């Protein structure tokens, strides 16, 4: 049993008692996580901001019923993921989905960056930029794993997919990024 206290539990309890200042603080503390998840899932800044607003409306409505069985952040991510999935279904045609692994790697490898560099720091920046070209489903697991530091199991539960799918998505994204690096090493000026 997990005995670690949820760091947001006091704030959540204050919100449940109608404390508006606590709600503002809760939004300030968590909105970056919600926004980045929405941004990676929806691939659009404006959509992500609208979605973040919508998520906090759900949160405000659902707070009286939140019992703290799960961590608040887990509950928040679940709301965000469900809301984004609904939005994605709604705008399915607009989303760019690549399911074939070779096509994914080629797609990433072809994306150029105007500020190509050979230094390690800059190589890192190139990779960060390349991450933004990955399809949303890969960016979503990258965000949950690397930014929010959730375990494979937690991600699988949140996304309602098998654990192997989470590992598969992450490994395919890693391979695609490694391929991008190889292209750069072989033809450093190809993307200029």
């Amino acid at each position, binding site marked *: 049993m997990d005995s670690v206290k949820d760091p947001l539990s006091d704030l959540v309890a204050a919100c*449940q*008692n*109608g404390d508006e200042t606590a*709600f*503002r603080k809760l*939004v*300030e503390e968590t*909105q*970056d996580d919600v*926004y*980045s998840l929405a*941004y*990676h899932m929806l691939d659009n800044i404006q959509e*992500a*901001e609208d979605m*973040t*607003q919508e998520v*906090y*409306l759900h949160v*405000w*409505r659902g707070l*009286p*019923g939140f*019992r703290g069985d799960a961590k608040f952040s887990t509950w928040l991510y679940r709301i965000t993921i469900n809301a984004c999935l609904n939005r994605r279904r709604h705008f399915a045609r607009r989303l760019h989905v690549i399911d074939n692994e070779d096509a994914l790697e080629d797609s990433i490898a072809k994306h150029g960056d105007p500020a190509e560099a050979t230094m*390690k720091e800059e*190589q*890192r920046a190139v*990779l*960060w930029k390349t*991450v933004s070209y990955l399809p949303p489903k890969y960016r979503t697991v*990258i965000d949950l794993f*690397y*930014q929010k530091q959730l375990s494979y199991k937690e991600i699988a539960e949140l996304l309602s997919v098998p654990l192997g799918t989470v*590992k598969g998505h*992450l*490994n395919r994204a*890693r*391979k695609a*990024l*490694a391929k991008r*690096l*190889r292209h750069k*090493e072989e033809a450093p000026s190809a993307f200029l």
Partner: protein
Amino acid sequence: MLSCKQVQDQLPQYVADGEPMSPYYAALRTHLYSCSACQAYAHRLRSVEDALRTCPPVHPSPLLTNRILRTVGRERAEAEEWQPLSWDVWVPIATFIMALIIASASLSQEMLAPVRDTRMAEMLAAWSHFLQSRSSLWGSTKRDLLWAVARGILATIAGLGMGITLAYWSERGGASLQDLEQRLTNTAERLWERTRHV
């Protein structure tokens, strides 16, 4: 002996796991030791891993907090305007009132005898007499029958309301009573404030 393809399939997970020394990866490590192509691939994967672990988070516009709070504030104002109490409060209240009506309709004059002298008993007796005069199931008129059916419907709704409320409260555990008390206090305060403004 593993092929390069097999090794390169396993390498992303191996590097992501921190290149563990477990026996599971023994064949992979042996291959890696002698294959420069796979070593180069592992090197690229380490760069990828490093980049992913240090990738800066994306931030929303600084105005987003206020937009969120405005949206929630509007919703709160609307909720306060149209629904001072949520269903889990007013359903039990309505259920209780219905149950009270049914119970009082079932009171006989004999049951009221011990407290006949009190003013409350007089009121209850008058109320009971009034209802019973209209609700006898054995009455022969259509109006009596209609009243009996209405009482049956009332009892069914009351039972359903009671059941739903009990299920909901029992699911929410002990927090609900405290929560209910808090919300009733808030609502009373709000109504009092409004009355004072009027």
